[in-house]
């Protein structure tokens, strides 16, 4: 069981074909990076960080993700500590100051850099060693990221490897990753175990609908060629209702997640309280437990837009969407 989880999650990161061939197993021994490798990563990094290139869509998606994370954390602060605390947090430039944040499948570090700039102690992990190299190289050029007391760190690791360590995080994000892993259930429970009690889990992925097939595969990959062909696989897309039903039944083990033997208990019912306890009509979760919000690319502005909560029962989550769920304090 233990080793099979390792193997599955080792494949989680390589969602862009140009990096797939450089993929190495997470179990492979890594060495400290030398100058020749830095030059090598620099060449690669021009693809990850070319904002006008193949990953332009991903770059443009980043602001809306960060805004959403910021918005939800402000909202939770309001729920926990009231309006004054929310105002105080909002007025801070570094809105995530003092928080431990994990970015699972960080790729070239697009999201991790933004989170670190907002003051979070950020750890970006990726199972592809070359991605980690790219992320490191890119951040090292930016004095804001490389000198502010090591608030940004990258590791070549998978979520399952981190589960075996004692550390948990206030915020765990995994953006546009889950539709690329082989065993999404194991991946979800690994992510969930990394969240502190009262902490937040943010995911973004694509719903399995005819619309999403048309937009993300037919249009984006084959017609417009905005995204490299083969980036997405329709059968791996995940519907919001599937994420919600996972967290309705998810009961993490009550004991410390640092003991490797607990991995076997993943998803089995030891804890009294699931993360999502009830749903409204259409299977919608309650506002304080979880939320699904669609995001839509507006071609004429070149920006992604967060759909309003009330646009449809599912927040217009017919294609790309963001998912937020909060771990209860007492779970």
């Amino acid at each position: 069981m233990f080793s099979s989880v390792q193997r599955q999650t080792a494949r989680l990161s390589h969602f862009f074909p140009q990096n797939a061939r450089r993929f190495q197993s997470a179990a492979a021994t890594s060495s400290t990076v030398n100058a020749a490798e830095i030059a090598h990563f620099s060449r690669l990094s021009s693809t990850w960080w070319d904002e006008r290139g193949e990953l332009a869509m991903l770059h443009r998606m980043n602001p809306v993700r960060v805004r959403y994370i910021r918005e939800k954390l402000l909202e939770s602060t309001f729920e926990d500590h009231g309006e004054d605390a929310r105002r105080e947090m909002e007025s801070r430039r570094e809105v995530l100051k003092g928080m431990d944040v994990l970015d699972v499948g960080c790729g070239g570090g697009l999201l991790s850099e933004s989170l670190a700039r907002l003051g979070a102690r950020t750890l970006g992990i990726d199972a592809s060693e070359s991605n980690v190299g790219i992320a490191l190289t890119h951040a090292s050029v930016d004095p804001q990221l490389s000198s502010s007391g090591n608030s940004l760190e990258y590791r070549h690791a998978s979520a399952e490897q981190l589960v075996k360590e004692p550390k948990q995080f206030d915020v765990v994000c995994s953006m546009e990753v889950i539709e690329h892993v082989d065993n999404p259930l194991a991946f979800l429970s690994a992510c969930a175990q990394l969240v502190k009690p009262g902490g937040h889990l943010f995911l973004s992925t694509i719903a399995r609908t005819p619309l999403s097939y048309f937009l993300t595969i037919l249009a984006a990959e084959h017609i417009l060629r905005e995204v490299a062909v083969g980036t997405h696989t329709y059968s791996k897309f995940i519907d919001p209702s599937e994420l919600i039903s996972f967290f309705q039944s998810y009961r993490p083990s009550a004991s410390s997640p640092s003991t490797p033997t607990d991995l076997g208990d993943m998803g089995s019912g030891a804890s009294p309280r699931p993360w999502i306890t009830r749903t409204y009509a259409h299977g919608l979760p309650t506002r304080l437990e979880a939320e699904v919000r669609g995001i839509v690319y507006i071609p004429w502005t070149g920006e992604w837009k967060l759909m309003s909560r009330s646009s449809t029962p599912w927040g217009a989550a017919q294609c790309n969407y963001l998912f937020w769920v909060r771990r209860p304090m007492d779970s």
Partner: protein
Amino acid sequence: MVVFAARRSLARLGCRQRAFLRYFSSEHTRDNDVVIVGGGPAGLALAAALVSNPAAKESLKIVLIEAGDLSKIQDWGMPSDAYSNRVSSITDASQHFLKRIGVWDYVEHARTNPVHQMQVWDGISGARITFDASEIPESSEMARMTENLNLQRALLRKLSDTPNVQVIQSVKVESIEREAGDTNHWPLVHLSNGLTLRARLLVGADGFNSPVRSFAGISSYGWSYDTQAVVATLNHASRGPFQAPNNTAYQRFLPTGPIAFLPLSPGISSLVWSTKPHLATVLSKSSPGVLEQLINAAFRLPETSLQYIYKRLLEGATSSEEIKGEIAFRERSDGISSHSAYASATSMVSKGGIPPDDADALPPLVTSIQPSTIASFPLRYNHAESYLGEGAGSRTVLVGDAAHTVHPLAGQGLNLGLGDVDALSRCIAQALTQGSDIGSYTALMPYARERYFENHKVMSAVDKLHKVYSSTAQPVVWARSVGIEVINELDSVKAALMINAGAGSQLQNASGWDLLAKSIENLAGFTNTSKMIGSTVGAGIQELAKNAGQRIFGRL
């Protein structure tokens, strides 16, 4: 074993960075978040706007470089009856922005003058349009005439009170290059004092010949008008007790270019006279006492008479007496009564008393020109193809004249620049709240999107105005005159035009819609008139299109 391998791969940026940076950093290289090249109004306003935002003030390291001596401007002062010759109309929208960033209080208000009314008329047909601030709801003035130095001094004083911006003056930018490495590296700005600035974001506020724009590899398109602007500060008699105060701006569209009279104080106004280069040369070098007579004539005499005066001037009739004689001759032959406001050389209008009927239609008579305020400069149209650098020129952004140059006839140049600065500072503030790299293309895209089309719209409208009014062809003159007189009767259309031009910034969208609704009502009322004149206007437009076609193909 697996766990250990993963732990070893853990790399901390702090240690790696030192080794990595060593090969390109030197002792004289400094990291900065925003490097602004150019200490003109746009560059200074950007610095001031950024530090007015608490997040930007706290987190950004901002440097401004200016080749000139800014301390002279900071200590600038003039006697209260003398004015600088470079004056701008600060629209209500720009004023609102300057108030928001805390700069407007630093402007010496006694040296500014409100504009309540604008009178614009056709040099050939005399068709006139009057814009009045009272037609815009909730606004008392359309714009405020302000010396550029007054504004620049205010910006500098504001910045010296907020030490977060480092202003490097009397230092030139020697060269700009990209850091060794790939395109993700930052621009390096080498200064004449030996310093090198490393810039997360390099802002080109460096004017028409922008070095930042060349570094960014952004091309620009445009043309020079065959026109020079002559500027001067004018002394004239104060308006009498039976007249409105000196709050009206006048502009007459002559076929050689518009001549504008901009009020600065009860007895002082500013001149911007756009005209053909050979005339501009003669005007700016004319002997004392000549230019004021020519200005008075240019606002008053019919076009044919003006052509005659220009001809005499170019033939060498350059003394004050000769010019006065020629103007008096034309006034008599045009049948201008010496008691009319249109008379200048033969004017018998007394200083006090009841002014002639038409006195409000014309600026007061210029009596003298303030010493050494006559200057002239060429006019051009220029628009950068993009405001953001890409690839080897990434991490650059253009504002103000570096991005666009426009004909001054609508007084929009400075206001467009301030509009850029407002949008860019808001864009940067927004990027900071979402943790973006403020030098990245993605973070700056909203700025370009907000401003590019907006500027283009204003610039081409101004350009078209210049071209339509340069024509002497009968149908064009007729069409533009009918058009302007019809619009002049439609108060709400005029109000909408003024709001578009930046007057009345505090209006909400709702009242904009109200205005639109009103204009539709008005238009319905005018349908009959339009039907009557419709066919002839059609002919005029055809002629206009033909004319434009000839111009375009002629240029090819």
